[in-house]
């Protein structure tokens, strides 16, 4: 984390980091074999600080972290590993009945064209949702920031979808544009001349669900974006106005770089939302249909687990999903390293 943070004044590091850096892994192991751990610790730590003092500080640090690490280990990591183990079985009745099939589940996934389609659709869906959410929330937040009065009124109206539970959002949207009994269906058909028919038209279903997912996530993004904009020093806004820079170029050239750490944070959170959090819309509106057009991975996983009681396959899918999202996350963070401007 850049230069050493002078805040870290409790605890101690036993000089482990420095020790490793100086000697490299093999050197350290050789040293340990020769002097034993006690000798190494004795030598490695910075002089002048009592070994006991540092050890006490370090144990306090781990004690403070214990609840978080314990809960993470027991209720997040252990079940995740169990899921991995489960993915090598065929299961029935909520995992009660399980027979070992090794990579059987993974083979079915690799060979099933439906699953390949599902992966492709998921990535397209995630991209649409993330881009849609980021652009619209940025525009709305920026307008909110620019407007001098009535801000809190607009704000409440812009962030309330965040409070809406996903299942409820799904039901409400189902009723808004249900092809035959939707409240808005007639209006939309009148206005755009399109035939609202997303029960049978795959592309339409994809966009309808994407719009619902985007709409739900706007609130969360507006909160963070407006907060970040508020943190940008006001002098910059005045300076830009003096130079006569237009509103939208001001947004793109000045504000976006300055709030890029927040935007990066939001891209990561929106990606996780698009992959894992949009299941309710699919489950309530299209059930992955029509013809698998909206069968995103998390829905397929959920249906295998809870409708077909095939937890083995579902676990395999969760492993693949985890891998896909990790790769995407890594790319995002790597890509953004140069673009994100820290310390606004």
């Amino acid at each position, binding site marked *: 984390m850049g230069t*050493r943070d*002078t805040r870290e*004044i409790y605890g*101690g590091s036993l000089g482990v980091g*420095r020790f490793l*850096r100086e000697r490299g892994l093999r050197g350290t192991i050789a040293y340990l074999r020769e002097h034993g751990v006690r000798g190494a610790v004795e030598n490695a730590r*910075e*002089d*002048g*600080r*009592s070994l006991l*003092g540092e050890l006490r500080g370090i144990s306090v640090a781990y004690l403070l972290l214990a609840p978080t690490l314990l809960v993470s280990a027991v209720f997040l990591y252990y079940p995740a590993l169990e899921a991995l183990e489960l993915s090598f079985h065929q299961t029935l009745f909520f995992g009660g009945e399980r027979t070992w099939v090794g990579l059987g589940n993974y083979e079915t996934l690799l060979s099933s064209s439906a699953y390949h389609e599902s992966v492709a659709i998921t990535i397209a869906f995630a991209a649409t949702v993330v881009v849609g959410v980021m652009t619209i929330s940025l525009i709305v937040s920026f307008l909110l920031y620019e407007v001098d009065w009535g801000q809190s009124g607009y704000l409440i109206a812009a962030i309330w979808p965040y409070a809406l539970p996903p299942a409820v959002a799904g039901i409400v949207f189902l009723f808004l544009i249900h092809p035959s009994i939707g409240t808005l269906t007639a209006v939309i058909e009148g206005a755009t001349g399109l035939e609202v028919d997303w029960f049978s038209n795959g592309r339409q279903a994809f966009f309808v669900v994407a719009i619902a997912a985007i709409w739900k996530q706007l609130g969360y993004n507006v909160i963070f974006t407006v907060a970040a904009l508020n943190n940008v020093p006001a002098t910059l806004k005045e300076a830009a106005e003096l130079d006569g820079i237009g509103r939208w170029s001001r947004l793109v050239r000045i504000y976006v770089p300055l709030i890029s750490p927040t935007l990066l944070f939001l891209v990561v959170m929106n990606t996780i939302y698009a992959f894992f959090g949009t299941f309710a819309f699919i489950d309530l509106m299209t059930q992955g249909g029509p013809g698998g057009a909206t069968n995103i991975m998390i829905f397929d996983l959920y249906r295998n687990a809870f409708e077909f009681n095939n937890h083995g396959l579902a676990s395999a899918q969760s492993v693949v999903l985890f891998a896909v999202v990790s790769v995407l996350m890594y790319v995002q963070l790597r890509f953004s390293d140069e673009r994100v401007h820290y310390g606004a």
Partner: protein
Amino acid sequence: MASIELTDLTKRFDDVTAVDGIDLEARDGEFLVVVGPSGCGKSTTLRCIAGLESPTAGTVRIGDEDVTAQEPHERDIAMVFQNYALYPHMTAERNMTFGMRSATDFSSAEIDRRVAQAAATLGIDDLLDRKPSALSGGEQQRVALGRAIVRDPAVFLMDEPLSNLDAKLRVQMRTELSRLHEELGTTTVYVTHDQTEAMTLGDRVVVMNDGRIQQVDTPQELYDYPSNRFVAEFIGDPAMNMLEVTLEAGSSDPIVRHEAFTIEVPNAPETEALDGGRAVLGFRPEDASIADRGTSPTGSVPDRRRTGRGDSERTTGPIEATVQVTEPLGDTLLCYCRAGDDEFKVQTAPRTGRAAGDAVTLTLDADRLHLFDLETGEAIYHSDTDRERRAATPEP
């Protein structure tokens, strides 16, 4: 009250050596100032004394106790920070007492007594129930000082406490700090990058650079007898002029030859060894004076600023130079003069109408010349012979 002793104090951060094995002693009750450019290790040294940094090597002793491995609060020291470090959500009074109330077993009556006393000393009685955001910079700094005084520690440690204040307030706070030190007499280590502050506040001044101590001395000694080029150029504003010269044995006194002039240097026994060697001549702008066109270089020169030294006025010169730029500072006029390829500054009386382009003849105060080794920068010669006589007199 207690003295502070650092022996072979070293502090390395990964690949950077911030403090490189320094030995330093702050006498009991002394106001010791550590001065140097940013990144010279002065703050790190202070933090090692405070215990906020653990030294890579060497020991820290306060009073006669080795505190190197002790926690900061066991060292009976108090520290004042550059940004005051006041808790924004607590009143001034709560700020001053939060530490004592949570970590010591003083009775609250005792604490209240100390707060009242400290507030009186600093004149902040009416500020006690206000929050930092409602105080000015100077007031916040006084509250920070109050927090240190309330602890009645053995040592005060101050990390550039005045640099956030505006110039006028800084001068005022300087006099207050001196008065405070007179009154309390607590041993104080004061870190600053401002050499004027160092000269005015310090009983003694430690000049540091690149993690090493360049010189420790009283302000006037530092000014008059810098131990190397760095101290010479760092102490004193405007800085001492440095000209590359060669030394030659003269008839009676050795001769210093520069491409544009040669001058005699009085009774410099050490210079014989460097006969023909190259060195660096140093003289302060106020020790050079401009002779009027008419008078001979060696005669006494009316417009030379007296430096309060009554004894014999030996001068040396002449140096022919042309004025490049003049900077009127109100009480003096600073002339940037050029002789040959070198440029140097000369401080003369104001309102003498000197202007850029004038050709002038300069004479130097023969008792205020310095020679430094070209490679090491170490001082090899100070023309003033008073040093032994003055050193013998007892400290003020």
